[in-house]
């Protein structure tokens, strides 16, 4: 990447913005367009851009393949935990109303965590798939 200073420098400016935008799409998803899936894809694409610049080895020091697998499982577990929490608090599976003192706040917290789980899983699965192809040899 030493030969392409323009690409390198623009990407270095863009990557933090991409990651920040992903977080915006993630947490603003219940007010505007967006949500966990879109945010996850944007977040992963930011990291993939980093891989294109610096290669897979350097990126793996930040997020290893093992970590992406762990995060993928974690995201699904967060989703399920919200569902089960609804059951434990006296509602039905995935019932958000019971999660907080009043139903509106409950709905808010519920969808926030659900989408967080979705976002984490989507981002890490996309990265894992990318790693699998990037590290494929022979």
């Amino acid at each position, binding site marked *: 990447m030493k030969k392409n200073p323009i690409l390198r420098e623009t990407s270095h400016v863009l990557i933090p913005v991409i990651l920040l935008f992903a977080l915006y799409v993630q947490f603003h998803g219940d007010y505007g367009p967006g949500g966990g899936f879109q945010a996850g894809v944007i977040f992963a694409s930011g990291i993939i851009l980093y891989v294109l610049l610096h290669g897979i080895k350097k990126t793996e020091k930040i997020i290893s393949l093992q970590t992406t*697998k*762990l995060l*993928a*499982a*974690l995201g*699904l*577990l967060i989703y*399920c935990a919200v*569902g*089960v929490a*609804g*059951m*434990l608090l*006296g*509602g*039905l*599976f*995935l*019932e*958000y*109303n019971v999660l907080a003192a009043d139903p509106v706040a409950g709905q808010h917290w519920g969808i926030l965590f659900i989408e967080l789980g979705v976002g984490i899983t989507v981002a890490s699965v996309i990265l894992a798939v990318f790693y699998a192809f990037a590290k494929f040899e022979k």
Partner: protein
Amino acid sequence: MIVSAHLPVIQVIIPLIAAPVCSLLPKSRIAWIFTSLISVATFLVSIAITLQVNTIGLLSYNMGNWPAPWGISYYIDHLSALLLVLISAIACITLISSRALLEQEIPAHKRSLFYTAFLLCMTGLLGIVATGDAFNVFVFLEISSLSAYALIAMGRDRKALMAAYQYLIMGTIGATFILIGIGLLYMQTGTLNMLDLHQRISTIASFRSVHAAFAFFTVGIFLKLALFPLHQWLPNAYTYAPSAVSIFLAATATKVALYLLYRVFYTLFGFEFSFEVLHLSSILMPLSIIAVIVSSLVAIFQTDVKRMLAYSSLGQIAYMTLGISLQTQAGLIASIIHLFNHAFIKGALFMCLACLASSIKTTQCQGLAGVGRSHPWVCAAFVLGGLALIGIPPTSGFISKWYLVSAIFESSSWWLAIIVMFTSLLAVVYVWRVVEQMYFREPTSELVSLHATPRLLLAATWLMIFLTVYFGIDNRYPVSMASAAVESLL
């Protein structure tokens, strides 16, 4: 929290939550213990659900407490309960007995992921049965199919990859067709809840798009069901999959597709629309007849016993669809009873082959010469399973055939009975070929047991054989469940 009120959803989320946890477990032995415990828990839940259904009747559960036509609802009636018990029982038996098989067939670093995929496949199959929402059915169908492709691709033979790929293509086409069907219905009615859809469809039954949806559903389900001529993916998938996967998929996957057929054509579209307005039988009956004859004939000429059993499965599935195509209550009961019985029969037979595969490393018919002497217990189990496949008392196969033939006579199409008898004779031929190799041939010199037969697997095989014989003598459970199911379907 009252657990009993949440059983329908607990049934599905136990394996769903266990799957990601399992993928993180480092040692395959721990993963095996964990998965086995989960499968036992799932089985116990399915028993509890059956008890509840028998006392209360239809169970329903609204996800997130959104009321029925708007939210996703789970409905569990007698038919669903029967299938839930079937899937979780087979999964439980397969998982507990599969450790030795996996140690031989799956590389160590993939075993945790194997169990993860297995749990996801279970989740998908259980979900299809539990849910009452048309789109949710598609989601679970994809979960079960995608994990099944991964499971099949883990087979040791390189052809397993090709088989999985073939299944992936065909399975995806099938699922897409089902999705298009759901989409068309949603476009017309604005609802996805199956009971709500049923009511709305009856008012717009003459619409062309409803007919198109019916056609897409039919082809999609026939593909998943592997009904002739859409069966090409099945023999390879069953033959090259790891042994444990063959056992589980042969016993459950096509059965769940058949369940989907009952649900879509009876509950969603309704009997009148499916059979009287659109004459489903006039396509289902010829295809079933061709399937049962052709696949039994093809089974006779297979050199690999696993492949032979796969073709035999195609024929047995056709018996079930034949029962449906009679358009009578008795035919439907026969179909459901055969679905239940055949799951245990085929599971047991694939388990016998798994025993042999792990011990003498071959499932080729030639390679089985004289194994009756070295592996008497396995071969005895195979003979009993084979008898059940043919339909000889006192096995459950006889009960299936009895109900089927009675239903055929009741609808006074005696020539169908002749076809059933004739194909049973074909089953005698293909089972006998293997039995002859096992018992009446001299063992070839190269036949040496590389490993002892895994004891747990042999015990599981005999448990399945015991169940096959048990349900042949005391068939109250499947018959009462099937009769109650038919009451609600028709």
